[in-house]
């Protein structure tokens, strides 16, 4: 499994940012995640208090979530406190630029996730075969080395894993994949 890499970590210093600053940008990103988790869990903790209880059920539907969200909020607060000690003001100022560079360095990830989102959005409209064919073809074209052989292979693979896979599931496994509205 690829280890997690935070913005700017892993030895890449896009844009020539000093290594220590880049590492701190990762800590800032984690700090922001702790803030988000703390805020979210605090909100859901209070939201869970409104859940009703019933006779015989001592705890009710809200007690366990309250326990979980309270624990999560405490952990996030502890992590936040520890993280605040590690982050300098300079790192906070440079965070925006470091994040943009981190994302720019991983533009293929952004593109693949974007294409995946688009694929899921059009899947119910176009149906599995067409949407999958489009997704596979475009994603492969984005990732493949530029050569006629690779492009031809991408077309064959796209056909096989879209129309072919649909036919396999339809006829062999009796699983009907989305057929689309057009």
């Amino acid at each position, binding site marked *: 499994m690829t280890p997690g890499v935070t913005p700017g970590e892993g030895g890449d210093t896009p844009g020539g940012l000093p290594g220590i600053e880049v590492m701190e940008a990762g800590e800032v990103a984690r700090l922001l995640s702790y803030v988000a988790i703390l805020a979210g869990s605090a909100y859901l903790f209070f939201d869970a208090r409104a859940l009703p209880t019933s006779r015989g059920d*001592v705890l009710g539907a809200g007690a*366990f979530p309250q326990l979980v969200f309270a624990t*999560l909020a405490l952990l996030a607060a502890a992590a936040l406190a520890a993280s605040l000690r590690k982050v300098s003001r300079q790192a906070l100022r440079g965070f925006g630029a470091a994040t943009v560079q981190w994302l720019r360095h991983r533009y293929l990830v952004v593109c693949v996730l974007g294409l995946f989102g688009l694929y*899921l959005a059009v899947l119910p409209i176009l149906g599995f075969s067409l949407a999958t064919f489009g997704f596979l073809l475009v994603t492969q074209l984005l990732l493949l080395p530029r050569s006629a052989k690779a492009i031809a292979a991408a077309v064959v693979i796209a056909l096989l894993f879209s129309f072919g896979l649909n036919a396999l599931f339809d006829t062999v*496994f009796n*699983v009907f994949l989305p057929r689309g509205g057009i």
Partner: protein
Amino acid sequence: MLDSLLLGAGQIFSLTTLTFMLLGSIAGIVAAAIPGFTVTMAIILTLPLTFSMPPLQGIAVMLSVYVGGYTGGLISAALLGIPGTPSSVATTFDAFPMARAGQPGRARSLVIWAAFFGTVSSTVVLIVAAPPLAIIAVKLGPWEYFSLIVFALTIIASLVAKSLLRGLMAGAIGLAISTVGPDPMMGRPRFDFGVEMLAPGLPFLVVLIGIFAISQLVSEVEDARAVRSGTSLATKDIDFQTWAVMREILMRPVNLVRSSIVGVLIGALPGAGGSIANLLAYDQAKRASKTPEKFGTGIADGVVASEAGNSATAGGGLIPMIALGIPGSAVDAILMASLMVHGVSVGPRLILDHADLVYGMFVAMIVSSLMMLVVCLASMRLFLRVTEIPKWVIVPVVIVCCVVGSFALNNRVTDLYLLGFIGVAGYALRALDYPLAPLVLGVILGPIAETNLRRALMTDADWTVFLTRPVSLLLLVAAVLSIGWAIWKHRKSTLRKEAGV
């Protein structure tokens, strides 16, 4: 017992089941052979294909993927120094230097045989230990069950996490995810905020696929230059020395048995699993060795220890699942889900109510090990071709397989949207260095913990019962000790880092 064993064996030894198992074994090995692709992913993708099969046939196929997958990771680990799965990390320590020193065939053969002996020995332990454990387990009440889940959760955080706090937070996030949707006791809607997609809750298989598979797949394309280079992964002209290596393995019985025991024990602990067992077994072998300085330079003892320890978790992990209804790892959770899909209720009564199924699973484990051995030995060169498939093909194709797997579960398009959101969240968590395994186990263990907590308090509203029942108390004390140990280890390693050791 014998009747159940024969009944189960009768179902396993049918031509259809054996054929599907062989295909499953190949699929597991192939999937795990691809760097970055895990046994979990292979087994997730197999699950929808088993829906139409009878329960034992379905679970036997899953087990063959499971056993094959544990071994498949060694292919890239031994030859390229890239662990195909997290459970083959320690395999790279000695197998890779051995391969680089001109003995790639010996390295491959060593890991295959060690994996086979590890799996078989863990299955023997499983057959012996699971039934008596199940008898004890049925006597456990909701108090003990809840305390057990608490203990399991602490183990996850203390063993898996690089950062203790983030490990615990990931587990808590998993528990939080499990609270979305109808509550498990009364069916009251929770946290759906009027969104149709959230109303039925978050299906844990969709969470698993999103968290593990999607986030892993997109992380594979982080390095644009590597993706577009189309480099070959295979090594040519390899001498495998198959039978000589088998003798070499058998000449190390102590290492083999010790590593297998470590694997079984770690596998039996909910939440631990192969990713830890291979490292622990390696560590134990190094400590026991007269020449510990040679570890890491390409010696057979290191390879045997890591791979036997890793593979023994396959059987070990099934012990809590069969005896207690608690998945030892994410893979075991999917096996558990497979049984549930077939209408088999998994819990302490499983072995009592479905003895033929459980003994059939034991037989399937042995058969799967043999199949894995035969497939690996017969096609070592062929499997190298899989590692030649470039990422530009593998990544989009497996994403499509994930979509199919998520949709086939409930035939709901909204599950696919969930998959998308969870995949992005999983990638973000991975990038922020949150461990993902505790999160997934939190999702799985959450409803079990809540149900038993509420059931216990419905039986007796007194909270102190958790402390007055001996087994419950023991488990809670173990949970506290586990957390204490994790904190102590964490502080020790932090102090060492600060001191620059």
